[in-house]
């Protein structure tokens, strides 16, 4: 009896503590998700009431060439962005961990992340201008052909990916750096005693012990990269042709420029399912829940 009372006492405060977070979750996540899924089965332009049309939006999307192109360029972006960012960030993190304790260097590394995305995008947009930009002036100066970074189909998506790598790499490096600090020093000392060189230490000690953090970083950056939007919105606007019409930007265009909210909701549901699947697969493959640190 006494035990039951104390248990009740715990449930009530627990509920109280959960209320603030639950309100946010229900109002801003769960309800919009349910409503979004409902709207994806309707024809809805905001101004008229939604009419239920079953799977028609999904069938249309399947036959929509722009959707498939947008998936292709989104994957292109994710591949370049995550690949480049993870490798550079890992290199930076290891360098910081092995060779410096300087707070200033850590600050400099994370500096681009502190600048608003839109400003970063616009500054690079102007720097890369064909006729007046500094970058093309340098390229021209050393005798090479100028490049239409944001304006040519081949360059536009890689350029946008590079801009975002520049902004995010410091932050990712800091996350990995924190993971490196959690690795006990004695493992490194043991490796040194065994006569392992710098590369061998990285491959056989650092990388395996960093795996859970690396998995976390990869899941977060992959999911984040799939949602690329702002850099595209302020620079190319989806062009040239469809070269930078990433899925999130296409959803925005369908919803807020063409006022086809049913179609846009269906696209968003597809993106949600895709991201959930990818995150799940990554978690399994990288065994994010286990660590090799237990001895």
């Amino acid at each position, binding site marked *: 009896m006494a035990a039951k009372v104390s248990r009740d006492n715990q449930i009530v405060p627990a509920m109280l503590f959960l209320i603030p977070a639950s*309100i946010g979750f*229900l*109002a*801003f996540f769960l*309800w*919009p998700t349910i409503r979004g899924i409902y709207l994806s089965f309707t024809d809805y*332009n*905001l*101004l*008229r009431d939604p009419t239920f049309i079953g799977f028609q939006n999904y069938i249309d999307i399947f036959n929509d060439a*722009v959707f498939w192109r947008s998936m292709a360029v989104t994957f292109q972006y994710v591949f370049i962005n995550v690949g480049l960012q993870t490798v550079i960030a890992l290199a930076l993190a290891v360098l910081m961990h092995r060779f410096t304790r300087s707070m200033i260097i850590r600050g400099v590394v994370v500096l681009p992340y502190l600048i608003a995305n839109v400003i970063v995008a616009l500054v690079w*947009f*102007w720097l*890369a*201008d*064909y*006729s*007046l*930009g500094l970058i093309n002036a340098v390229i021209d100066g050393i005798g090479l*052909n*100028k490049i*239409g970074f*944001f*304006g*040519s*189909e081949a*360059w536009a998506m890689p350029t946008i990916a590079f801009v975002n790598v520049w902004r995010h790499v410091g932050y990712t490096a800091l996350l990995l750096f924190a993971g490196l600090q959690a690795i006990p020093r004695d493992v490194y000392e043991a490796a040194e005693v065994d006569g392992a060189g710098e590369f061998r230490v990285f491959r056989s000690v650092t990388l395996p012990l960093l795996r859970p953090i690396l998995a976390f970083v990869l899941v977060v950056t992959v999911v984040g990269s799939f949602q690329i939007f702002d850099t595209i919105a302020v620079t*190319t*606007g*989806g*062009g*040239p*042709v*469809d070269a930078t*019409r990433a899925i999130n930007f296409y959803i925005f*265009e369908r919803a*807020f*420029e*063409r*006022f086809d909210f049913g179609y846009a909701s269906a696209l968003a549901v597809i993106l949600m399912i895709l991201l959930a699947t990818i995150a799940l697969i990554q978690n399994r493959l990288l065994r994010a829940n286990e660590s090799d640190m237990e001895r």
Partner: protein
Amino acid sequence: MTKALAGIAALAAVPLVLAGCSAGSTTTDGSVEIKYSLWDANQMPAYQQCADDFHAANPDITISIDQSGWEDYWQKINTGLVSGNSADVFTSHLAYYPEFVLNDQILPLDDYIAADGVDTSIYQDGLVDLWKSPEGVQYGLPKDFDTIALFYNQQLTDAAGVTAEQLGSLDWNPKDGGTYEDVIAHLTVDKSGVRGDEAGFDKNNVETYGIWFEASNAGALGDGQTQWSYLAAANGWEATDGPWGSSYNFDAPEFQETITWWHSLIEKGYMPSLAAQTGISWSDQLTAGSVALASNGSWMTGYVFGATTDSFTPAVAPTPTGPTGERASMFNGLADNIWAGTKHPEEAWEWVKYMGSLECQSVVADAAVVFPSIPEATDAAVEAFAANGVDVSAFTVQVDEGTTFLFPITDHKSDVNALMTPAMEAVMSGKEPVSSLTAVNDEINGLFK
């Protein structure tokens, strides 16, 4: 469950309501506040002046003006309409208002016009009709209009020996480009100083282009307002089968040969490629000397002339005459719409009526930003521009000579632009032939079925 969901929805809506501006409300002293939205920051001071004058004449009505940039404006208006929390009166555009008419979001004005005996014949020809639905219902009183002309850097034309007189009497055809292409070629200069019409011109290393090409603006390629419509129309082309049309003519030879010629300018090196024009906007490229000529709308006059520097002397020339023997310019105008959900339709109408009146339009004219729709005020604006040292006759000549054509009003405008823009980008980058636009036209016309 339903109740709980409704509660959650209400909760979710709270911040939106708090963040949004509340709709026109009756204040404590019984006076009425009318919310008015517009997008052009350049016109804001003039309309603030109108609002103050209006309030002085009607002390029980206060106008509060809310300005937001073009990019955000339509999202704001649309979310306002959806949430039942819109501005009572808002500046409207021909590309958007058909949607509002079809969804009963704006008030018809006919009863008010009849009751107050407003004379709608005082406006420049055709402008009133732009704001009439297919059934002949009037939704707006035209406030101003804009036309297209060629902005140029006089220092570059002087250096090339091209006179203002020559620029004012250019002719064009889609076969060889006429004197228009001759001038564009002559104004193009490569790195070593060789002009576009001289031997040894290096089209891959152009220092100054003859004419600019702007694809970045949402409608620039879709309806070609500032970019190709003045040429296509001078070639005898019409965009649709009339106002509120239900079929587009992007498959017509008059249109496709115009675009073929236009694209040839890129291949000849006289105009920047799609890749090269992405980035800093046309007006800044003109100021910086990257280009000699650029076609654009009268609303940019203030901006271009405000950018005068030691190396940039702005001037304007009219668009060239085409195979029709006449010039052509798209004629677009703005008007104000009244939100159907306003609590104070009478007061909102009074404000709309005032903005369309000579009194307010004279204030707008003095600001020298746009051309008011009432001829008297148009003249006043021309003088106000002249007082600032700007000769705007290149814009008004189209109205004087009756060579304007109307903005193509149709339903599905945003879908049309969304289909046309990537298709035109593919054509202009040389990826697809001009004939590929025929299939796009079929797709567009399919929207109306």
